[in-house]
């Protein structure tokens, strides 16, 4: 479905060619992180804390070092002492000291699973045996897992160096409140007091994991001359380089990171866990070292998305116009200061026009693994609360829930939560498309209900480098620094082929290592098709200009007497008037006409726009068991322009499925002892094929005027609306308003049978 301004006709944009890396991936040839081996490689393993909070009194590694086959042992003391430095590499900022201490604990273990020592040996069996020979003396400390418990007077404080950021004046004592973010305007209390209708509620969510199927792994080789190589999959090999170099206090150019294929990330692979440890083990042993996590380690020691406690109050006029919103929430930071609260604040209510608002978010430290980015980090939690409250408000006012949203929906020029005006956003278009979709008016069966929710994510632009080069036969290589996590090689090839007006197969896109292309930010923030795409277009345009210049030189005519036409240069004047030269003809002579033809675009992409989505969900609730079945699901999203619609739909479908899992099943479950009880895929239940129906992705195209082809980011938005869409559908089916996730059968059953 296209918005009216989408008039441009394209040759490649919007087509669905097969991805260039496809055959390798369906035949098992593609090399992912755990597949890589280096000659002479040692096998590493990591010893992890069995306690949720403990002082490390001593670590005795002598017996492990004496085991035949063990070549190196490392502890936190092998990493250099660093000054606090906040680094912006992924989605949000992290202090390099925290990243270092998360790679290997120093002084205290802050969660069950926190790395405390590592070994490298000649076989995985010996490495595991050596772990058992490391003697760690712990002094167990009181621990805290819950949000409100962590903020209570007398709670165990994780870090005596953390004084709540964002509070003026600075608090006089350290606490677990790592950061407080507040935005707002007007008179919230006054407006709520005079509102015709109000709703209020407390919503809770547990931490959930990104759930990528590829566990973290890397191989590092660090030579005595200081130069090193790392082979790993990540969402950004430049981030791996800068973070690893910073943790080890060495020059970035001394590390060459080669990106391997990445088996899913969803934000969770924008940081590092293993690389500095593998580097230290490699330096000590003089050999390449491989570290790889088990699934259990992934659950216990890598970043989940934060759980939350969220209090919401909304007020509206009798006709449904929102007059006030008050949203206050606590997010789990885990063991180190995370950054989801800021994004949560800016993602809470900005999709509506509301005169009086207060949004306050607090990051709370607790003895859980450090929270990390997960697809639209910080947005789904608060959106669940706000969009559930909107549904309740619609019921109270007797207004159709889509009409209530349409009445209040923000459009271009309306203020965001920050006060800045929205650009060319497409929320209204999405709501209208949802209302017009046959799903919205389809009949429902017994025990079925329909819910809707809207949401958004800010997206991002930022730094990308792309090199477009012409081979001697006129074929084109596009090299980027952006890991391809779901088809971006195809979208880059499409954009370059569009610029050059050549066949898609004439352009091949690759992901280059850190020594072969300039710095590029992570594949995250829904930025790659936008920002790296912008660099691809810019570099391809320069290549086109160079080809024209060379052709003019070959014909002996001024440069303005040639023109790019149908993938070749046409001569407009002189003896050669009417002749054309293809890229192959020009490139074949390039060594004699000025040298190879290539162009680099290195830019920091500006003008990104947020994406908006509206999801419609039908559920069927079994009153006997409390089981919720998703019967039908439609996800409408403003995608700007879909470069490769298959992969845009795929992002929307995958994000919706993750959101459905978050709504119905997924949660970190801890025992009384502070240890994770469900650190595996059997007990941490992600959706499987039989849990889901087809997910209809409806692409609304409201192009971004700042991008040559109108791109807006698409990857993160689709996980934002599902939580409330499912909850609202359960309410419609049963009359029960569930405010605590996951809405697992026991909770739904209890809500349906309040008397027990």
């Amino acid at each position, binding site marked *: 479905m296209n918005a009216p301004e989408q008039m441009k006709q394209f040759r490649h944009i919007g087509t669905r060619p097969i991805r260039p890396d496809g055959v390798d991936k*369906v*035949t098992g040839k593609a090399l992912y992180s755990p597949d890589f081996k280096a000659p002479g490689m040692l096998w590493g393993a990591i010893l992890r804390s069995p306690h949720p909070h403990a002082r490390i009194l001593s670590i005795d590694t002598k017996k492990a070092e004496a085991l035949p086959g063990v070549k190196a042992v490392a502890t936190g003391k092998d990493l250099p002492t660093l000054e606090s430095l906040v680094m912006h590499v992924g989605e949000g900022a992290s202090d390099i000291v925290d990243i270092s201490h998360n790679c290997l604990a120093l002084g205290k273990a802050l969660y069950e699973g926190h790395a405390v020592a590592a070994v490298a040996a000649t076989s995985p069996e010996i490495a595991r045996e050596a772990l058992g020979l490391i003697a760690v003396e712990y002094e167990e400390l009181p621990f805290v897992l819950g949000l409100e418990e962590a903020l209570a007077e007398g709670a165990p404080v994780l870090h005596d160096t953390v004084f709540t950021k964002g509070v003026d004046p600075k608090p006089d004592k350290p606490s677990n409140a790592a950061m407080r973010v507040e935005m707002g305007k007007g008179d919230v209390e006054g407006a709520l007091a005079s509102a015709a209708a109000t709703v209020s509620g407390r919503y809770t969510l547990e931490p959930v994991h990104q759930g990528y*199927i590829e566990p973290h792994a890397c191989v590092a080789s660090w030579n005595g001359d200081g130069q090193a190589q790392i082979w790993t999959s990540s969402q950004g090999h430049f981030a791996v380089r800068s973070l690893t170099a910073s943790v080890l206090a060495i020059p970035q150019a001394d590390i060459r990171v080669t990106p391997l294929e990445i088996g*899913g990330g969803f934000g969770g692979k924008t940081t590092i866990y293993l690389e500095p440890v593998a580097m230290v083990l490699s330096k000590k042993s003089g050999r390449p070292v491989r570290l790889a996590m088990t699934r259990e380690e992934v659950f216990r020691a890598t970043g989940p998305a934060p759980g939350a406690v969220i209090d919401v109050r909304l007020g509206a006029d009798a006709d449904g116009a929102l007059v006030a919103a008050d949203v206050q929430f606590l997010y789990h930071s885990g063991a180190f200061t995370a950054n989801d609260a800021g994004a949560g604040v800016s993602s809470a209510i900005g999709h509506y026009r509301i005169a009086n608002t207060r949004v306050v978010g607090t990051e709370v430290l607790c003895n859980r693994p450090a929270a990390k980015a997960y697809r639209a980090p910080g947005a789904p939690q608060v959106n669940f609360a706000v969009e559930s409250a909107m549904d309740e408000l619609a019921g109270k006012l007797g207004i159709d829930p889509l009409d209530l949203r349409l009445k209040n929906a923000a459009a271009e020029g309306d203020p965001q939560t920050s006060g800045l005006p929205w650009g060319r956003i497409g929320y209204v278009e999405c709501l209208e498309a949802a209302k017009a979709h046959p799903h919205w008016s389809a009949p429902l069966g017994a025990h079925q209900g329909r819910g809707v929710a809207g949401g958004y994510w800010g997206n991002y632009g930022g730094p990308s480098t792309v090199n477009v080069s012409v081979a001697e036969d006129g074929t084109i290589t596009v090299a980027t620094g952006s890991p391809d*996590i779901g088809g971006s090689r195809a979208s880059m090839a499409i954009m370059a082929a569009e610029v050059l007006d050549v066949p898609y197969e004439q352009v091949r896109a690759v992901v280059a290592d850190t020594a072969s292309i300039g710095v590029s930010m992570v594949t995250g923030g829904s930025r790659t098709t936008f920002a790296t795409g912008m660099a691809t277009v810019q570099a391809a345009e320069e290549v086109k200009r160079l080809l024209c210049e060379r052709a003019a030189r070959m014909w002996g005519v001024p440069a303005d007497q040639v023109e790019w036409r149908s993938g070749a240069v046409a001569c407009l004047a002189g003896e050669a008037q009417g002749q054309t030269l293809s890229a192959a003809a020009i490139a074949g002579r390039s060594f004699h006409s000025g040298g190879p033809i290539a162009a680099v675009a290195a830019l920091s992409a500006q003008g990104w726009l947020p994406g908006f989505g509206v999801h419609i969900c039908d559920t069927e609730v079994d009153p006997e068991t409390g089981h919720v079945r998703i019967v039908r699901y439609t996800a409408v999203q403003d995608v700007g322009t879909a470069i490769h619609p298959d992969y845009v739909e*795929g992002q929307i479908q995958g994000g919706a499925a993750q959101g459905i899992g978050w709504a119905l099943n997924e949660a970190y479950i801890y025992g009384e002892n502070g240890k994770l009880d469900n650190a595996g*895929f059997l007990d941490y239940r992600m959706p499987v094929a039989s849990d889901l129906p*087809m997910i209809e992705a409806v692409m609304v195209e409201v192009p971004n005027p700042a991008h040559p082809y109108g791109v807006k980011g698409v990857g993160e938005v689709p996980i934002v609306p599902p939580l409330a869409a499912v909850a609202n559908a359960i309410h419609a089916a049963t009359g029960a308003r569930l405010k605590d996730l996951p809405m697992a059968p026991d909770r739904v059953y209890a809500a349906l049978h309040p008397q027990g």
Partner: protein
Amino acid sequence: MSKIRVSTTVNGDHAEFLCESTSSLLDVLRDTMGLTGSKEGCGSGDCGACTIMLDGEMVCSCLVLAPEAEGRTVATIEGVAEGSVLHPVQQKFLEHAALQCGFCTPGFIVAAKALLDRNPNPTEAEVRYWLAGNLCRCTGYDKIVRAVMAAAADLRQERTPA
């Protein structure tokens, strides 16, 4: 501890390897034989990324001890295509964009081929339940199910809409 010598057939070729008594077949395939197409997502039989065929039965190779391969027939993702000619399941995965990161893809393709080998005309529900032992976190399964249905139609020499 001395290693165990195992004689087996992998993708139609005779193969011999030495392994520990505790080694999984997946570890031997990946680390000893260099067949890294089968992936380890969990090591506990919950994700299906290591799915292979053992004497024609679909199994998680992480749950099979390597010495159990003695005298048996192993088929992995590396043997699904005939030379450079893709199997229809592989071809439809490409045409339907049924992979994003691709890490779960080998397991899905082996499992889907096993389904179509015994049931050439599965319903959508049959496809979904057959593949319920394979986790995919990227796609929401929509395009995977469509690709398998399309491959089934292709094998039956019917045409289906994309």
